């Protein structure tokens, strides 16, 4: 677990600048990434697909542009990994599900085309909990990803492959999706930075839908500045996503170093009750920010505790509708039957894993006649209460701090038989998802077992700039040992 300079990437800006100037080649950075994959993939299983040949062609194209005097863009030559629920034209996209195994999307997600246009080089598609439903990657149909800090433990989820790939130094930048915490929780468990932007800041076009009113795409990186640059590149309005906000990408890098002097920062008391090391980290983070000039106070927002139960009605309800498209007709698996309805049911029964089936059943139940008002209708009203409570809190605070997760990375198998126990992983991350607000996890401390502990920074809608400023300040006050990359 010692950091060796050989596998540490420079900052994204330094990589891009050395490639743009012709000092180093995209091919050289790619070779570093592919070398790390060869060495570590057997232990970690970060990837569902490694796109070696396409990556070499893409890197050569970047180098050719530089030689021709063209600028490949702000991520020139940066190797990136993408969660395998982002559509990549002609490259298998599975959602870690048997029902989509072997499917070749006919188009690229907007995030994919923006990364290519910025000069980034895709090295592979990363493992996830099937259809992004889970908090450990144990729900992948293709086997779990392992945490580089301790390969007996989960990397978190659902974007576990993307988080582990950055934490192990395989790539300096990756992307995941976050519906209730699926970027922030694995970032915390893997000791890296993960950002869920405001809903609508990043286009969802080509992101395979789980819960459409909650899903957002965001970056993983080892530093706040790298995550900020990654987000800037993919953000901004996209006519292909009708929920994409009609505004330019937020400018984040310019204000990162402005510090926190005078900012009002609230520690959410309702998530600081159990005295765990994750709670201690938030208290210490508050002290560090106060020392840096912020005005730090406790705040109680009990309505946020409605988030978890509301989410576990709303997200399955939306999922049950979104996943109805996997019917054995247009793509993916088909298990034949004498009539179409039987074919649909057999295909879905065989193609989906246990957690996906559970959520489809829960969602279908919550939307079915006689239960709609009691569950789905009530959950939507609870969502309103969460949003109102945040609005009230943000009258007095610029940002809020909570633990990202209730616990550090847990051993394989320890929660897999108890869905509720697994759902509790999302306790602190769900409220901002329901509100559509941005949130980031920053590695801050090491636990007594030597595992990273993340602190979550929450901000109101479109508050990315102030959120990332606070994140940068936290990073400056954090234990360097708590941050990847690490060698397994």
């Amino acid at each position, binding site marked *: 677990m010692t950091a060796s300079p050989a596998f540490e990437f420079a900052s994204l800006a330094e990589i891009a600048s050395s490639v743009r100037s012709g000092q180093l080649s995209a091919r050289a950075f790619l070779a570093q990434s592919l070398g790390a994959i060869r060495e570590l993939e057997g232990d970690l299983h970060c990837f569902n697909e490694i796109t070696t040949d396409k990556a070499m062609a893409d890197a050569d194209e970047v180098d050719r542009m530089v030689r021709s005097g063209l600028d490949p863009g702000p991520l020139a030559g940066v190797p990136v990994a993408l969660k395998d629920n982002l559509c990549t034209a002609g490259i298998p996209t599975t959602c870690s599900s048997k029902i989509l195994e072997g499917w070749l999307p006919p188009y690229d997600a907007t995030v994919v085309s923006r990364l290519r246009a910025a000069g980034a080089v895709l090295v592979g598609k990363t493992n996830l909990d099937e259809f992004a439903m889970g908090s450990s990657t144990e729900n992948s149909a293709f086997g779990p990803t392992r945490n580089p800090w301790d390969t007996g433990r989960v990397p978190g989820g659902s974007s576990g492959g993307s988080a582990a790939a950055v934490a192990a130094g395989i790539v300096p930048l990756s992307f995941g999706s976050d519906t209730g915490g699926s970027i922030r929780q694995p970032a915390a468990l893997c000791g890296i930075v993960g950002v869920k932007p405001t*809903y609508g800041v990043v286009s969802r076009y080509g992101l395979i839908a789980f819960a459409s009113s909650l899903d957002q795409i965001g970056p993983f990186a080892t530093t706040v500045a790298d995550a900020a640059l990654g987000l800037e590149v993919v953000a901004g309005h996209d006519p292909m996503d009708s929920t994409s906000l009609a505004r330019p990408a937020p400018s984040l890098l310019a204000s990162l170093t402005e510090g926190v002097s005078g900012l009002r920062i609230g520690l959410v008391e309702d998530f600081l009750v159990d005295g765990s090391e994750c709670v201690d980290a938030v208290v210490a983070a508050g002290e560090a920010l106060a020392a840096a000039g912020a005005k730090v106070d406790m705040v109680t927002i009990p309505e946020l505790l409605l988030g978890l139960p509301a989410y*576990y009605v709303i997200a399955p309800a939306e999922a049950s509708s979104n996943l109805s498209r996997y019917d054995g007709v247009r793509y*993916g698996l088909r298990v034949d039957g004498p009539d179409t309805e039987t074919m649909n049911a057999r295909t879905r029964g065989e193609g989906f894993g246990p957690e996906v089936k559970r959520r489809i*059943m829960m969602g279908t139940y919550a939307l079915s006649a006689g239960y709609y008002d009691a569950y789905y209708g009530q*959950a939507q009203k*609870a*969502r309103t209460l969460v949003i109102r409570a945040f609005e009230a809190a943000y009258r007095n605070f610029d940002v809020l701090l909570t633990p990202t997760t209730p616990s550090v990375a847990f051993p394989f198998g320890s929660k897999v038989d108890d869905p509720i126990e697994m759902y509790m992983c999302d306790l602190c991350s769900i409220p901002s998802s329901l509100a559509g607000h941005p949130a980031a996890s920053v590695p801050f401390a090491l636990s007594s077992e030597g595992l990273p502990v993340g602190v979550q920074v929450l901000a109101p809608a479109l508050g990315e700039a102030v959120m990332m400023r606070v994140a940068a300040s936290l990073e400056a006050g954090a234990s360097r040992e708590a941050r990847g990359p690490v060698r397994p």
Partner: protein
Amino acid sequence: MSEPDRLITPEQVRHVARLARLALDDDEVGRMALQLSAILEHVDAVRRLDTNDVPPTAHPFPVENVLRADTEVPCLERESVLSQAPAVESDRFRVPRIMGEAP
């Protein structure tokens, strides 16, 4: 279970599975009845909430219908889409019968 109306029975599981077009074997039905009952118990805080005068939120921000200009743009190529389908006939998706026998 003190509130029998909340307990999901195996019969209800089968009904919901039919609505969801999900083939479950008997083991799965039994397990699902227990697990869904546990999940429903957990989300009961939401069911019991006093929400008089609270409007529902379906979406974090107001959503408006978006129309694009009525101009021709290329769509996905038929070939690349059909090449991913489990069964194709005459440039169409082929499925098993959808209607019962004629009377």
